[in-house]
């Protein structure tokens, strides 16, 4: 059975603009009061009053008049949707000031209705909104019940029709003519009209009205498009003053990353790149990208990587705002931590790579691999991303040094000796390596040579150019 929780933010026009309780604040639309805070209500200011009445009631008390900003309300509602998406996946916004959450499917997750309501209450109070709750099997009924006293609104054990009965018809403000004609017939509450036969009511008030009533009672299906979380993430933080030291950016950075990761966790998305925008006093925008080798949604890791980048940043001028953009989001992939040795390895392997790369640059970190090649310099594969699949390398048949020089270097030679940190003596060899005849023929005789200190080197004589080279060090 589906169960809907309606969250009605009656004070949204006010609370999205101003949360001050120190003086009377009134939100106006077309010179009429839409919303007033407690302070103003205590002065007797009510919704619907004109500006002149408000001024008269205020009577020299400090009073703040604000123009209603519907786009700010919608932004707040979107943020609340984003938050509520962490509670249930099926939800939608309703009537400009409500959220409808389908919670029948996630009661077990929160260990019952009480657990869920506690979670919702703490989430909303931390955001500083006041809210009315309504709980019913259909979204429309939940919305209507949010106007009822709290004990009726949340008591789902009683029959729905009985709980709806005392509510005034005036709440159905989408059907003004129907409500008007019913009032004139002496019907004032929902209970009055629910007792009437549907067909008769339909003839008098129209099909839409009866359709509404049927959806209200769950006799007809009521489908609404579910809220879809946005595909990209953007959040901003405004300092309200000029920031000049890099360290002062860190608290704002942490807040933004936490909000990003809450978003990522509830949408089950991950990212490999985040983009910071430092917004200067003169509105110049400076972008800093932070990359990671593996996509993840762990804010502490992003915090570490960003700190490394910000430490090296030279702030040209003052910074007033910090924005976090995240355009390229991908479905989550599980992270690899050693399951059986959790004590030894506390983070995924890629995290160290990320930290090193973000300070030293992508090219500074390399991996090695083997290739099935005869020439020593081709048998080692060094690259800054992952080397190709490793072919099975048989054990080298002969002596091989630990260190290989990336390029063989020419040895200085006289008539009697070869020189590399002193005169070299050949100790062992030769081992002939010939290869690459189809391209540029290579024919070498490899020897092990020792210097006066006893260090062994891997040297060869190029049989074609008749020169001596050093290629490796035995260490």
């Amino acid at each position, binding site marked *: 059975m589906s169960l809907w929780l309606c969250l009605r933010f009656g004070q949204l026009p006010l609370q999205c603009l101003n949360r001050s309780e120190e003086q009377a604040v009134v939100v106006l639309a077309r010179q009429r009061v839409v919303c007033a805070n407690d302070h103003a209500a205590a002065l007797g200011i009510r919704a619907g009053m004109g500006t002149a009445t408000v001024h008269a009631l205020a009577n020299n008390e400090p009073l703040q008049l604000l123009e209603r900003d519907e786009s700010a309300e919608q932004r707040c509602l979107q943020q609340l949707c984003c938050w509520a998406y962490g509670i249930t996946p099926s939800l939608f916004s309703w009537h400009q000031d409500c959220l409808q959450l389908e919670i029948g499917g996630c009661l077990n997750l929160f260990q019952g209705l009480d657990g869920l309501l506690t979670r919702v209450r703490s989430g909303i109070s931390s955001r500083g909104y006041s809210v009315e709750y309504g709980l019913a099997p259909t979204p429309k009924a939940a919305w209507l019940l949010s106007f009822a006293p709290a004990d009726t609104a949340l008591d789902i054990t009683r029959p729905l029709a009985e709980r709806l009965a005392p509510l005034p018809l005036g709440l159905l403000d989408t059907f003004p003519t129907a409500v008007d004609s019913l009032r004139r017939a002496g019907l004032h509450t929902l209970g009055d009209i629910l007792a009437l036969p549907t067909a008769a009511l339909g003839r008098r008030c129209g099909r839409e009205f009866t359709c509404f009533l049927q959806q209200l009672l769950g006799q007809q299906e009521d489908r609404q498009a579910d809220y879809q979380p946005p595909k990209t993430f953007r959040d901003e933080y405004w300092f309200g003053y000029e920031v000049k030291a890099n360290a002062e950016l860190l608290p704002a950075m942490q807040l933004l990353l936490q909000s990003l990761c809450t978003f990522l966790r509830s949408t089950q998305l991950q990212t490999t790149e985040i983009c910071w925008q430092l917004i200067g006093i003169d509105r110049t925008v400076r972008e800093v990208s932070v990359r990671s080798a593996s996509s993840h949604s762990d804010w502490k890791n992003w915090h570490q990587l960003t700190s490394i980048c910000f430490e090296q940043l030279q702030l040209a001028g003052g910074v007033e705002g910090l924005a976090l953009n995240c355009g390229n989001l991908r479905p989550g992939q599980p992270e690899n931590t*050693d399951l059986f*040795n959790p004590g*030894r*390895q*506390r*983070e995924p*392997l890629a*995290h*160290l*790579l990320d930290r*090193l790369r973000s*300070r*030293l640059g992508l*090219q*500074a*970190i*390399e*991996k*090695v*691999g*083997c290739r099935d090649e005869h020439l020593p310099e081709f*048998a*080692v*594969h*060094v690259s800054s991303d992952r*080397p190709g699949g*490793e072919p099975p*390398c*048989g*054990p*080298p048949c002969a*002596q*091989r*040094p*630990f*260190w*290989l*020089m*990336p390029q063989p270097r020419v040895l200085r*030679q006289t008539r*009697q*000796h*070869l020189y590399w*940190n002193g005169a070299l003596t*050949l*100790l*062992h060899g*030769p081992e002939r390596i010939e290869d690459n005849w189809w391209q540029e023929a290579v024919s070498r005789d490899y*020897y092990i040579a020792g*210097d006066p*200190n*006893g*260090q*062994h080197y891997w040297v060869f004589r190029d049989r074609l150019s*008749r020169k*001596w080279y050093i290629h*490796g*060090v*035995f*260490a």
Partner: protein
Amino acid sequence: MNEVLEQIINRNDTWRGRHRRFHHHEPSANSERHSPHGGGAGLATGYGSLDAQLDQGGWPLDSTIELLSDSNGLGAMGLFLPAMERLSEQGRWQAFIAPPYIPYAPLLAARGIDTGQVLLVHPKNRQDLLWSTEQALRSSTCSAVFSWLGTHNYSYSELRKLQLAATNGDSLAVLFRPTVAADNHAPASLRLQMREYRRVHILKQRGGNQHIDVDLPQAEDVPGQPQLWELPTCPPPAAALGSAG
């Protein structure tokens, strides 16, 4: 006064002598092996003669090891190959920070080391070198960290920072430094010097034998695997160099 002493004793980088050093008869041979840091925590070096001389019965994993050698180290890497092979099972990184050249991957693979774990890090300057070494030591993702600190001068506090990072980690931490560094103090609990192949000089060992040479006998080499310092006995033909001229 006692409080001050206690604070010093509680620091994890304060070494405390143990009674057994002075009373040979007291402890059993078994407890001798075990370090105060918990259960003979050393990682077997692969060379029995060296294990016998090391306090923890192998490489200490809770401290840095300094290896002093000039030029490219006479067999210095060969000393750690058996340990690298064992650490390879853990599947964590084996970081080479500022390595002099490229490690020859087929040789590592032939010794049973997973070359996919080898990470070559090339810092551009001294600060980055210290920073990346510390990062690798602090991170729990490295089973071995080899860092070539080069000929720069390092202050005691810089080295101590690395030592502290190694104390918290669980990895084989080896710092390669030139022989002249032997004259200066260093916080590493084990300092080794290699002047020739198959001979390790223990320059300093916290709580253990010092100033001794340890020979690594050929008998302990793993048969059938390439060795780094063992030269085949047959000399090259005398004419080899002659053909150079």
